[in-house]
C-alpha cells in the first residue's frame, strides 16, 4: 500500500489539503464521507449500471496490429476514446455527480482545459437535471470550440476566464473562487487527480476502472493479466492514475507517464512539470510545480489544452520521486507526427492529449515479446481544427 494516500491525504511528502478556511467545511464533509458513500451498495449499483449502460463500459482493449508491426512489438490500445462523450473524463464525473446527489448539492461547478471534462460534467448534470457552471480559460474557449458548443447545448453555462494565460490553471482558480462564494449548495467536480485531499484519491478511485478492465481483458487475450508496460499521458494525471491503479503493486509492470513538452523542455514554452518543476503548493495541494525562485507559478504551454497545466497530481509526484513510475515527455511536433501515424495505421484519430502517450512509443526500448498497453484517453474530434491547420488538408 506504499502508493495509496495516507489518512492525512498524503502520498509520501506530496498532497494534503492546503485550503483556506473558507473551503474547510466542504472539504471536511467530503473527506469524512466520500469512502462511506462510494462503497455503499446503493452507490455501487448505480455507478456500475451507468458505467455499463450509459458510458458504454467496458471500453475495448484493442490489439493494434499495424502499429505493432511498425514498432516490432505488441501494442494494445485501451479505448477510452470510445466512451460516451469521447474520453475517460466521464468515469469521474459519473462518480462525482452521484456523490454530489448524496451530499444534497443542487449546483455543480467545474474547470476545464480541453473541454472534455467540461462536456463530461455538463453531460452528467443534464442526466440528473442539476445546474452546471463550467469555467474555461478564454484561450481554450477559442481552441476547443466544438466542446464549448456541446456544453452549451447540454445546458451548462460556460464562463470564459481572462486571467493569467487564460488556460486550465486560470479556470481552476476561478472555479475555486466560485466554491468559496457558494459554500452550501455547490459541489465542485474537479476533473483530474489534483486539488486538496480527498480529490486526488477520489478521482483515482473513479478512474481505476480502466486498469481493472485492462487486467481481465489482457488475461483474456494473452493469458497473462500483466503487461510489460503501460503508457498514459499526464496533465493532472487522472487517466494515467486510472491506468496505473491496479498495477501499482505489480512491480514488474513498468508504468510510464508522458508529459507535454510543448516546444521543448529547454524553452519556456513547456508543460513538462516533473522535468522542469519543483515542490510547492498550488490549488490546495503540495506537489511538483512549474515556478520561479520567488514561488510564483510560471505559465505553462502545450498544443494540447488538456495538458497545459503547471502542476501534476500528488500521486504522480510521489510515483516519480519513488521511481515506481517513469515520466517521459513529448513535444508538440512529436505528438502531431504520432497522431497522424495511428490515424493512418489504425483508423483512429486520437485526442492531442492521448497522442502524447503514443509519441512516447518512439522513445521506449522494446523487446519483441513485450506487451505494451497505451491508454488512449480520448478521441480527436475536438482537435480537428488543429490537425487540419497543421497538416494542411
Amino acid at each position, binding site marked *: 500500500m506504499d502508493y495509496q494516500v495516507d489518512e492525512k491525504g498524503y502520498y509520501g511528502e506530496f498532497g494534503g489539503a492546503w485550503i483556506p478556511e473558507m473551503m474547510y467545511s466542504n472539504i471536511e464533509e467530503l473527506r469524512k464521507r466520500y469512502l462511506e458513500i462510494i462503497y455503499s451498495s446503493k452507490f455501487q449499483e448505480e455507478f456500475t449500471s451507468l458505467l455499463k449502460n450509459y458510458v458504454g463500459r467496458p471500453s475495448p482493449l484493442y490489439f493494434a496490429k499495424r502499429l505493432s508491426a511498425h514498432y516490432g512489438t505488441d501494442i494494445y490500445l485501451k479505448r477510452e476514446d470510445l466512451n460516451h462523450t469521447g474520453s475517460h473524463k466521464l468515469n469521474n464525473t459519473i462518480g462525482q455527480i452521484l456523490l454530489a446527489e448524496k451530499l444534497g448539492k443542487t449546483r455543480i461547478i467545474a474547470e476545464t482545459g480541453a473541454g472534455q471534462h467540461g462536456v463530461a460534467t455538463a453531460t452528467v448534470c443534464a442526466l440528473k437535471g442539476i445546474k452546471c457552471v463550467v469555467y474555461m480559460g478564454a484561450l481554450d474557449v477559442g481552441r476547443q470550440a466544438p466542446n464549448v458548443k456541446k456544453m452549451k447545448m447540454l445546458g451548462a453555462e460556460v464562463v470564459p476566464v481572462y486571467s*493569467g494565460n487564460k488556460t486550465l490553471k486560470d479556470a481552476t482558480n476561478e472555479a475555486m473562487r466560485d466554491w468559496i462564494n457558494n459554500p452550501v449548495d455547490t459541489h465542485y467536480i474537479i476533473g483530474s487527480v489534483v486539488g486538496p485531499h480527498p480529490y486526488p484519491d477520489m478521482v483515482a478511485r473513479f478512474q481505476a476502472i480502466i486498469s481493472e478492465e485492462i487486467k481481465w481483458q489482457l488475461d483474456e487475450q494473452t493469458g497473462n493479466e500483466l503487461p510489460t508496460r503501460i503508457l498514459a499521458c499526464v496533465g493532472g494525471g487522472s487517466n494515467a492514475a486510472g491506468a496505473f491503479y491496479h498495477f501499482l503493486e505489480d512491480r514488474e509492470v513498468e508504468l510510464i507517464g508522458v508529459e507535454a513538452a510543448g516546444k521543448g523542455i529547454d524553452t519556456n514554452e513547456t508543460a513538462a512539470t516533473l522535468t522542469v518543476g519543483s515542490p510547492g503548493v498550488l490549488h490546495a495541494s503540495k506537489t511538483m510545480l512549474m515556478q520561479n525562485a520567488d514561488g510564483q507559478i510560471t505559465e505553462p504551454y502545450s498544443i494540447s489544452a488538456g495538458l497545459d497545466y503547471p502542476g501534476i497530481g500528488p500521486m504522480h509526484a510521489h510515483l516519480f520521486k519513488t521511481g515506481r513510475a517513469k515520466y517521459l515527455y513529448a513535444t508538440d511536433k512529436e505528438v502531431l507526427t504520432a497522431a497522424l501515424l495511428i490515424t493512418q495505421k489504425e483508423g483512429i484519430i486520437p485526442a492531442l492529449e492521448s497522442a502524447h502517450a503514443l509519441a512516447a512509443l518512439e522513445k521506449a526500448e522494446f523487446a519483441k515479446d513485450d506487451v505494451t498497453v497505451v491508454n488512449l484517453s480520448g478521441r480527436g474530434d475536438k482537435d480537428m481544427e488543429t490537425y487540419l491547420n497543421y497538416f494542411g488538408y
Partner: protein
Amino acid sequence: MNNRINQLFAAKKENILSVYFTAGYPKLNDTGSIIYELEKSGADLVEVGIPFSDPTADGPVIQQSSHKALENGMTLNLLFEQLAGIREKVSIPLILMGYFNPVYQFGVKEFCEKCNETGIDGAILPDLPLDEYLENYQPFFEKNNLHNILLITPQTSDSRIRQVDAASTGFIYMVSSSSTTGKNQKVEDFHQDYFERVNKLNLKNPRLIGFGISDKATFNNACKYASGAIIGTAFIKSFNKKEPVTESIPKFIKSIIG
C-alpha cells in the same frame, strides 16, 4: 511578550482600523510611503500583501493589484529589503499577508526570522491550514515573536473556532461572509447571527472582521461585533493616477474614521 499586536489590543478595545494593501502596487517602491501615510492618517494596523500569481481567495481587485505588483517586479526578497528600515519611521503593528507558496520557497523558518529582524508582528497565510501549522511550523513563529493570524468564517463550527482560538496568539480574523475578497457587502446582509454566535463563545483572542468592509457604514457596523475591522479592496481601489499617495491615503482614511 512585547508584540505590537498585543499592545494594540490591550490599549484599544474598539474601532480598530486595519488596512490591507498589495506590496508593489501601484508602484514598485511605494511600500514604505504607503505604510507611513497609513499610520499618519490614523490606521491602527497595516497588512502588507505579498503578491502571488494565483490568488484563489481574492476577487478581481486584489487579483489585479497582485498581477500588477508582480509585473512591477515585486518579490518577497525585495519586500524585506524595502521594509528593512521601517521601524525607524513606523510604530503601529505590521502584518505580512500572502499565499503559502512564496513563503514556502523562501523557507518558513527563514521567513519567520526575517520578520522578527524586520519588526513584523504577525503573518496571515490563508492557505496554510491549522493542522499543518501546528504540526510543522508553530515553533518558528513562536520563537520569532510572530503571531500566526488564523481565519474563521460563517461556516466554521463552534468546536473548530475553539481550536483556532487555542492556536491563536494575536487576534482572530473573522471573515464576514463566505466569499472571496472585495464582494461589496450591504450593511443589511451582515451575518449578525454568526457574529453573535462567536461573541458568545468567550474566546481568549480579540477579533477583527474582514472581507467586504468598504466604507464608513460597513466599518461602523462591523465594529459593533468585534474590536475592529479590516479594509482591503476598497483601499486598493482608492489609489488613482491623479493623486500621490500622500494625498489619497489621508482622504481615504478620513472617509472611514473621520
